[in-house]
């Protein structure tokens, strides 16, 4: 029973984190066809931002969250303008530009904060005991905030004019352009939105993890697996895929021997099994080949 609650909590938390990251990643891929490897690097930068504001400047964690989200979103837009926009037509070049960006962020953070493990105080202290298991309020907060933001994003995409523009650009860039949508601006705003999501994820999850400059690698891989599993460009797919992989990881960690080493392998094997049966992912639309 104790184990079950542990598994559920851990699965819910990592599932929400993967869902937030994957939706941001597939947004910018859908709109601008950018495979943004640096996506989780922004998440890492946000986490370090919070560390700086709370530990070095001694402010309340809430301020840390706000500054992290604002600063990282700005950073994302600047990086997009400077390094990605000029070479957007060359897909290969964009790809390694984002890898290089991620490496640069990792190194800068390593230089400023050193490579050692750091941690950040929780936003709300305390825990509640459910059937003999400590469930920290921070865990519940992370989960709740993730759901809230996902709901907000859903209504932004489905109910507003900006969302309509984003969706139509994702569907067909040329036609969207012909309909009078400023495609370049939509791409930039989507970049801001996607990086903002990454920053938010970093902000809510950082009290539960340790900070180190390489912390972007594992989420990056899981995020990509989620995106492929759920189907590129499908919000519902990313959402469901994230929880599937999150729970798979949690189950392996708590139940299998050597689980901590195998958690990535098992989750990724599930993704590959699904792909063998459904090559376009769970909810992906198998659209005509782009020629």
């Amino acid at each position, binding site marked *: 029973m104790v184990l079950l609650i542990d598994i559920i909590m851990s699965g819910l938390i990592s599932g929400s984190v993967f869902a937030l990251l994957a939706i941001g990643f597939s947004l910018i*891929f859908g709109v601008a066809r950018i*495979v943004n*490897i640096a996506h989780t690097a922004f998440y890492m930068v946000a986490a370090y931002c919070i560390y700086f504001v709370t530990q070095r400047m001694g402010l309340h964690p809430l301020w840390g969250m706000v500054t992290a989200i604002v600063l990282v979103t700005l950073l994302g837009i600047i990086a997009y303008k400077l*390094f990605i926009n*000029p*070479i957007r*037509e*060359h897909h*290969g*070049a964009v*790809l*390694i*530009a984002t*890898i*290089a*960006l991620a*490496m*640069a962020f*990792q*190194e*800068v953070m390593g*230089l400023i904060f050193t490579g050692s493990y750091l941690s950040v105080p929780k936003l709300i202290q305390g825990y509640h005991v459910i059937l003999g298991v400590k469930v920290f309020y921070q865990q519940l907060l992370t989960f709740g905030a993730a759901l809230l933001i996902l709901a907000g994003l859903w209504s932004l995409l489905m109910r507003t004019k900006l969302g309509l523009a984003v969706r139509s650009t994702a569907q067909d860039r040329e036609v969207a352009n012909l309909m009078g949508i400023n495609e370049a601006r939509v791409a930039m705003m989507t970049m801001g939105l996607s990086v903002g999501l990454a920053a938010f994820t970093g902000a809510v999850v950082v009290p539960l993890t340790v900070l180190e400059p390489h912390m972007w*690698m594992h989420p*990056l*891989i899981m995020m*990509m*697996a989620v*995106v*492929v599993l759920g189907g*590129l460009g499908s919000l519902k797919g990313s959402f469901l895929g994230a929880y599937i992989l999150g729970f798979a990881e949690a189950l392996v960690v708590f139940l299998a021997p*050597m689980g901590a*080493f*195998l*958690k*990535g*392998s*098992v989750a*990724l*094997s599930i*993704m*590959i099994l699904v*792909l*063998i049966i459904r*090559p*376009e*992912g769970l909810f992906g639309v198998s659209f005509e*080949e*782009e*020629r």
Partner: protein
Amino acid sequence: MDLIFFYLRKLFNIIKNEVLVLPSRIIVVLFFLFLLLIPLFTSDPYLLRIFTLTSIFAILAASWDLLSGFTGQMNFGHALFFGVGAYGAAMLNKYAGIPPWGTIPLGGLGAVLAGLIIGIPCLRLRGTYLALTTLAFPIILMGLVFAFPNITGGELGISGIARLAKSRVADYYIAVVVMLGLCTIMWKITDSNTGIIFHAIREDELAVRASGINTTRYKLLAFSLSGFFAGISGGLYAHFMRIAGPSTLEVSMSFQVVIWAIFGGIVTIYGPVGAVFVLFPLMEVLRFWQDYRILMFACVVLLILLYMPDGLFRWLREKIEKECPRCKIRSIATRKTCRICTAQLD
């Protein structure tokens, strides 16, 4: 005697009429000579070590180009082939006692097997799906490596395997000659009929299938060929470093290959090779600023891409050579007319 003179004259004619007319060909010949003659001028072990490693990674980058550049099957998990080659060679050497000249090709064959295993589920995927899926395979294998530490050595890897050769210079020559040979073979493959089909698959798979060509078979062939070359480079690496560790399977290894290849210019073979010969020694030079090394590397890559998004070596080649608009044959950029058909070059 006459026969020898005949071949000498033929060689002389080829050099005069085919090689000396184009600066890029002269550069390639000079590059070959330079690599083969370095040990005559220096026996500095550090320098030789860098060039040996550079050659080994050049094979890896070129094999990525064969699969992802020419055939268009974006592979983000190229470290899988490298790691399988390295671990295969190391295990065969350590547990079966086979000497390096046997383990390296066998490791390459192991990588071919890996290529087939990942090729079959990946055949139905294309583009970004394929890229993101292939990323998963080395990580799965790495999980297995950590889970069975008594066979694979876990985090420490398999150490204490046989040396490639007795001396540094011999190591160097083995790596360089294998590199030059394999890269020439890869270039020949891309130039052959098979290579044209690879190229066509990348441009328009549907049209190739419509022309009655079994694209599945050719894609699997591309996976196995690329896997074989990458596996050989992995085996060479394991025997040269005398250790096969999990670092050969890391995500950063896969990304490194992609950076090298795209930086040099894909769909060329010479581009990735040249890029490794620029970027790998650059990393060694940057060792003087240890803390800023990777940061500076990333900045160099970013800045060069801003100005040459097609890759460094393609950009350079465009600068020194022009393509004839009529017969599509290249001439040196200083000429006013094409060297073959005398059409005006602009």
